[in-house]
């Protein structure tokens, strides 16, 4: 019996592959097949489930720091890029 007959199981991908898929998983841009693979893995691998939990917290904490106190020069460089992109963006 192949994995395709039964749906993916936790061992169809390694922990390293699961971690590599996490950024796209969190963005919701994985193909249905890849999403099924990582979810099967996360369902049985406590280490990867914990890793994902920590990444989610990292994203939440980073989202809460506010940009006021970031290095002003680096922030200004980004703002320049942003303004240029906004000005030159294709009309939608």
């Amino acid at each position, binding site marked *: 019996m192949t994995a395709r007959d039964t749906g993916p199981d936790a061992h169809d991908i390694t922990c390293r592959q699961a971690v590599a898929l996490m950024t796209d998983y969190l963005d919701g841009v994985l193909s249905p097949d890849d999403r099924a693979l990582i979810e099967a893995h996360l369902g049985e691998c406590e280490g990867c489930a914990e890793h994902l939990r920590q990444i989610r917290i990292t994203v939440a904490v980073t*989202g809460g720091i506010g940009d006021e106190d970031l290095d002003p020069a680096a922030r200004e460089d980004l703002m320049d890029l942003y303004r240029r992109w906004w000005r030159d963006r294709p009309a939608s």
Partner: protein
Amino acid sequence: MVAPELAARVRQLVEELPPAQRQVVTLRDVEGLPSADVCGILGISEGNQRVLLHRARARIRRHLEQEAVW
């Protein structure tokens, strides 16, 4: 709202990232922009953006783990 000490530490970790990682994580996670906009602003591919974001988050996570934040 994030505890002030934790926010200060994460802000410092963001600033210590290599420049490309710092730019991506600032636009994606601090400013909350979607990946397509970030690719346009920085002039990078989706794949490159994903790798940089992944590395940035992984490095911040690892530091927080080493500092026993979890």
